[in-house]
């Protein structure tokens, strides 16, 4: 295992300490239980937004805490959902009297832990809404399974509902923005290499020098299919087809195109991917009105990428363009 870490058990803690040292103007970090919170939380009268999940997906979620996005993030152990006590304390810390939205990725653990936390917070008298993000078209959906995973759309939804909250919208309306983003977003990912969980010390999966995994999750979970490595343009087509086939919208619609790196793929390759994804989207009559390119929802050092298409309307465009000031996403301020 080749990593810049000390004791693998301390990676999450030490990375949080690094964040605290780096961004005192934007965030505060609370330990035991661990959560990252906006430096000026709670913001009176504003809906608070809390997300969280396993660590190893940086900058998500801690890097998205700040004005115009999340009020707090709860980092779990690497690839492990955080616990209800973290979420409860974070919820209390960001409650400015207007209620708190939990943005939850659809993994059994995340959903159950956030459910417990929401129950406890409500028992405390805090109004809590939860929106579960489930945008991964690699997973075949069904009433009888855990359903689709929450992946790339999470980043976009957090930006959008963060802006809505900043504008002063009500809990119901902020949750509505989040649900709309989830309903209008579709993603799919792929991997060239495996990640290595620090405390495991070896790659989660073996993969041949000429193989790739299509439909991979962000935790090194195996994907839909293992196949021979292909040229970037073909890979992009393999990701775009299921996304386009599942889109709840049509030619002529405006979209945001998000090309996300899994952590180990350099930016030059993400632009090669973007080129083709843009071409395919445009070829289907979609208008790419906004985009995001870079490592935002990662899987440690895994090489690979994911693509997200999100339908946009005027309100979402306005919310996307609104100022954001977090460690990882920043503009307009």
């Amino acid at each position, binding site marked *: 295992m080749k990593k810049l870490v000390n004791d693998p058990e301390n990676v999450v803690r030490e990375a949080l300490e690094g964040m605290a040292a780096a961004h005192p103007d934007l965030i505060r970090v609370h330990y035991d239980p661990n959560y990252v919170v906006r430096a000026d939380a709670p913001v009176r009268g504003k809906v608070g937004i809390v997300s969280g999940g396993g660590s190893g997906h940086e900058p998500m979620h801690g890097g998205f805490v700040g004005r115009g996005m999340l009020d707090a993030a709860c980092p779990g152990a690497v690839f*492990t*959902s955080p616990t209800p006590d973290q979420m409860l304390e974070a919820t209390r810390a960001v409650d400015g009297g207007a209620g708190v939205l939990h943005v939850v990725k659809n*993994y*059994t*653990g995340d959903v*159950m*832990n956030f459910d417990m936390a929401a129950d406890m917070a409500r028992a405390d008298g805090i109004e809590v809404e939860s929106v579960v993000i489930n945008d991964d078209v690699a997973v075949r959906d069904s009433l009888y399974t*855990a359903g689709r995973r929450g992946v790339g759309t999470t980043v976009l939804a957090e930006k959008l509902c963060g802006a809505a909250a900043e504008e002063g919208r009500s809990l119901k309306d902020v949750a509505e923005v989040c649900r709309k983003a989830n309903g209008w977003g579709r993603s799919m990912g792929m991997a060239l290499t495996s990640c290595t969980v620090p405390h495991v010390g070896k790659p989660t999966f073996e993969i041949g020098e000429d193989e790739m995994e299509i439909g991979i999750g962000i935790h*090194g979970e195996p994907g839909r299919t293992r196949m021979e490595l292909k040229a970037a343009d073909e890979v992009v087509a393999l990701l775009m087809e299921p996304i386009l086939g599942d889109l709840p919208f049509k030619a002529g619609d405006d979209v945001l195109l998000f090309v996300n790196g899994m952590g180990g793929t350099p930016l030059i390759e993400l632009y090669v991917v973007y080129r083709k994804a843009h071409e395919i989207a445009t070829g289907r009559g979609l208008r790419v009105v906004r985009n995001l390119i870079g490592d935002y929802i990662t899987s440690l050092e895994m090489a690979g990428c994911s693509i997200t298409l999100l339908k946009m309307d005027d309100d979402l465009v306005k919310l996307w363009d609104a100022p954001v000031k977090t460690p990882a996403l920043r503009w307009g301020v």
Partner: protein
Amino acid sequence: MAISGDDVVGWIRRSAELLAENRDYLTQLDAAIGDADHGANMDRGFRAVLQKLPTVADKDIGTVLKTVGMTLVSTVGGAGGPLYGTFFMQAGTATSGKDALEPEDWAKALEAAVNGVINRGKASPGDKTMVDALLPALEALRSALNDGAPLAEALRRSAAAAEQGMKDTIPLVARKGRASYLGERSAGHQDPGATSSHLLLRAAAEVWSGQD
């Protein structure tokens, strides 16, 4: 005759030991169809439990088990945290105020625990989850006690049923939890949660086998 408070603490300790020993094994199982953390999660949780135990060792069995459950909820995370947390909290509620458990008390506690897991996780038998080890274990315990088997024997049959249930998860296609994302590709692998469940029941059988 009965399971004492010390016996319950002994069970928890032995469980912690078995989970620590099987940490890498559980993680490997989870790597195949999940995210390679089940061993680390359970081990982290039970190490926290071991630290907490002394503070409640002189309390009633219900308090001990509820404390175990609450500690797991706040240290394990993932799917395992709420599920095993609920398991022990429900077992604790069912044994509230008791200083010793008769065989029937244990059966009721296990029943409450397993129902708690099912209510929280909404898994049915055959979904390739810990339920596939827990439910057979409960049923085997009940039927052994109905057969008039002594506790030690009933515990052994319960653990054996958990082991069988665990093995029977191998061919299953997962419908719940992270393994369900794999669809057909989840078949051919043993479920990590069913495996850790078996370890808990095996620990009970080992530690309490002196009783009958």
